[in-house]
């Protein structure tokens, strides 16, 4: 029996495309965000509200990742923003090559920001770098306050945590300890920016917009 040393990155092929994407974003001075969350946390609603309310300040393009259908892309299209739908046909995350292909169809020259809405999943997408400037993790009140403790990887890797559906907290007195979420997330990631928001009512969205505008300005 004989062994050979290989020492090769298993996801090297994904990383190569991610770096190409990253280079393109740097050249075009376009901010790229990779939004990751469980299904139903409100990523698409956050995006549509953000695009509409920042229309005069930031030009946004969207890459929508879903296992199937273009339901989300249709919702984004109502804002007038360019959107490319990727259907992964069963895969639980987007890969950098899929994003690379989608980027050839987006009018990136006229965009300040590209938002990639990843497939709804709190685990798998965190393992695949797509070339983004920052990962944004979304957690909604209905999912429970134990998620940073139970799914640490994505909270450790994200620059921003959006705690969505804050309107439910007041309306239904949901059993959700927001301080626990903040403490647990900051234990994993001391510098994570946390914005409690409601994409439905608009509560808290202003601080998120401020953060976005600052990132776009600093490119």
């Amino acid at each position, binding site marked *: *029996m004989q062994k050979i040393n290989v020492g090769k990155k298993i*996801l090297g092929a994904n990383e190569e495309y991610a770096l190409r994407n990253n280079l393109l974003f740097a050249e075009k001075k376009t901010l790229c965000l990779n939004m990751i969350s469980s299904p139903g946390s409100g990523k698409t609603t956050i995006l549509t509200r953000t695009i509409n309310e920042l229309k005069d300040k930031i030009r946004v393009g969207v890459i929508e990742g879903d296992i199937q259908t273009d339901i989300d892309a249709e919702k984004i299209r109502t804002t007038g923003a360019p959107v490319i739908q990727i259907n992964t046909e069963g895969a639980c995350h987007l890969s950098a090559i899929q994003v690379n292909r989608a980027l050839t169809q987006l009018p990136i020259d006229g965009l300040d920001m590209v938002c990639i809405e990843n497939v709804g999943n709190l685990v798998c997408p965190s393992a695949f770098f797509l070339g983004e400037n920052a990962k944004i993790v979304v957690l909604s009140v209905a999912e429970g306050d134990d998620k940073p403790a139970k799914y640490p990887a994505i909270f450790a890797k994200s620059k921003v945590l959006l705690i969505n559906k804050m309107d439910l907290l007041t309306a239904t007195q949901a059993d959700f300890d927001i301080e626990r979420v903040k403490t647990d997330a900051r234990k994993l990631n001391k510098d994570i920016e946390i914005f409690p928001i409601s994409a439905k009512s608009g509560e808290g969205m202003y601080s998120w917009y401020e953060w976005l505008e600052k990132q776009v300005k600093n490119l």
Partner: protein
Amino acid sequence: MHEGMIAQNLLAIILQHAEEHNAKPTAARISCGKLYAVNDEALCFAFDALAQGTSCEGMQLQIEHKPLQAHCKSCSETFNVDFAKPKCPNCEKGDFELLPDAPLILEEIEFEELPCNDWQKNKTHQE
């Protein structure tokens, strides 16, 4: 189940090496960082399924999980992070910075037998 795509990439790399060396691979050792959240059972299951009918069929995978390290900002200790108790084991404070996660690496492949010249050329070692 991101292990599916990891298995796909892993298989492609091993098959390439098997072809280069003209030998049947029997085992591989990989190492991975904690934040890749790789589940051994899921990775082996996906790999087995994908390897059916290839020269990698029946291969054993050995997965070495590298701990995630952190640097304590209070006492400068470097320690392995335990997500269940995220604090410095030395000073008990929670003010730390995560160090880069270990990459996902195919470390080595074991073959049934390698042709002699090939063995020399690729600086391999015999068990």
